[in-house]
């Protein structure tokens, strides 16, 4: 067992409100495109907010064909499509010889909520006899990940991690450890959340959505006007493997995973967040990689346009980075994508790989009014061309989870 194995990213598949496929996604981030629109997936007349990051024009047929598509829920369709893109991107051939060495690790938390509701509604309305058994598998949270293994005939480990906002980052940590333990050669790491009435209702009734005050919903992380999230959906899948394995099979290497760390602080709720867990996670990720704060060029923040998270994250970064905070660029892609919850970490990682490979900092768009409590070296409203060697990606869940990943370009020793 070698904990020194270098783990690299060799493929990315993205289905998001601002673009499908990694090139389109990266270009949209560079353009500062915003993926918010009027919700068409369900009737919003009972809600005060009618805008979300809904993916329109999504056609799973184009990625995964017709077979059994009918019984797959939206989460599964999104994840399968992103997986298809990632496998192609990584030029990964799954064969009888290597299939037991390939794994799947997915972050998903609310993915089955809509399917559970629909299953119950059918049972109550039609009676137990007439409930369609084919829809039952969708009601469990590990269904999307399992369908990836079934569809692509992947026979290695298959896990789903449901740690809320940190889920797909935790899925990456779990997968990387699996590879380092020698239990897998390649892992499809993903995150997925679908937009549905049930999740929307939860965020709406918890008072977490922007626009509840009757004003136009706005996702403006770090901006003084921020007042909640714009809920969104999406899937991102990242193919990871050891550098040696990637080189052996001639796979293109997009970035190296330099370090990662998780820390839990039970801060209690959305209102009071000390940031101790996030601070520990960032410090440990830097320390594990023997990096100083000034070695980081870009922080892909998890700030989601809520008052407390953005304030807390800014304070933690200022504290950990000290003087370097004035030089390291910071932004939140959630200003363009919205809050995709379990998928947000994987999407931020995919964005940061783009930033490294294409040489730009994705902007925090919709930024107008400075908040002294969120004073960082923000890249706002317009992408900034910059050479990025290393990016630090954060995720933080209000109920205590925090996970941080550091990635770097492959030719920058």
């Amino acid at each position: 067992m070698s904990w020194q194995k270098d783990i690299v990213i060799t493929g990315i598949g993205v289905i998001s409100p601002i673009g499908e496929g990694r090139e389109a996604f990266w270009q949209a981030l560079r353009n500062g495109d915003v993926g918010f629109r009027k919700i068409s997936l369900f009737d919003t007349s009972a809600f005060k907010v009618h805008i979300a990051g809904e993916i329109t024009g999504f056609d799973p047929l184009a990625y995964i064909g017709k077979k059994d598509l009918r019984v797959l829920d939206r989460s599964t369709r999104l994840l399968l499509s992103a997986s298809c893109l990632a496998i192609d991107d990584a030029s990964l051939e799954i064969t009888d010889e290597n299939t037991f060495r390939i794994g799947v690790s997915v972050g998903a938390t609310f993915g089955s909520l809509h399917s559970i509701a629909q299953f119950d509604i059918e049972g109550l309305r039609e009676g137990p006899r007439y409930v369609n058994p084919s829809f039952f598998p969708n009601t469990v949270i590990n269904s999307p990940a399992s369908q990836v293994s079934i569809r692509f005939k992947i026979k290695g480990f298959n896990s789903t991690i449901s740690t809320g906002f940190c889920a797909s980052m935790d899925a990456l940590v779990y997968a990387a450890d699996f590879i380092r333990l020698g239990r897998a050669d390649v892992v499809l790491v993903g995150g997925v959340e679908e937009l549905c009435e049930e999740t929307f209702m939860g965020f709406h009734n918890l008072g977490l959505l922007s626009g509840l005050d009757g004003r136009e919903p706005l996702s403006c992380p770090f901006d003084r006007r921020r007042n909640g999230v714009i809920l969104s959906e999406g899937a991102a899948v990242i193919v990871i493997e050891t550098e040696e394995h990637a080189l052996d099979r001639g796979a293109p290497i997009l970035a190296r995973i330099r370090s990662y760390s998780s820390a839990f602080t039970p801060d209690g709720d959305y209102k009071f967040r000390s940031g101790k867990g996030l601070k520990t996670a960032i410090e440990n990720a830097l320390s594990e990689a023997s990096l100083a704060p000034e070695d980081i060029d870009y922080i892909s923040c998890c700030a989601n346009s809520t008052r407390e998270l953005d304030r807390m994250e800014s304070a933690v970064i200022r504290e950990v980075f000290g003087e370097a905070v004035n030089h390291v660029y910071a932004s939140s892609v959630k200003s363009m994508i919205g809050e995709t919850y379990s998928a947000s970490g994987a999407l931020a990682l995919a964005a940061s790989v783009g930033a490294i490979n294409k040489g730009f900092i994705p902007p925090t768009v919709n930024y107008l009014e400075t908040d002294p409590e969120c004073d960082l070296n923000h890249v706002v409203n317009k992408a900034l061309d910059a050479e990025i060697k290393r990016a630090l990606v954060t995720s933080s869940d209000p109920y205590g989870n925090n996970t941080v990943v550091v990635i770097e370009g492959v030719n920058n020793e």
Partner: protein
Amino acid sequence: MTESVAKEIISIVSDVTGFEPEEISLETHFYNDLEVDSIKAIEIAVAIEKRFKVSVRDDEIPNITTVKQAVEVVNNLLKEKEQNVQAQ
């Protein structure tokens, strides 16, 4: 009756399996030709029950292996239903 029943059943089977109606005939075998598994078999049975307002016995479902057999089962159930109505 048989022809319209067959058409309806082929349409249901097509919906569940994803195969085009043109690919399905009376002789088509559910398990060998259409990749029907036990869950899909129940799904087809439930859809048939809803459409024709009949009740297929659970223990009979595994024995129905072709479209033709499904049509025969439905025709018999419809006949029984009609006789019951007349008897009342």
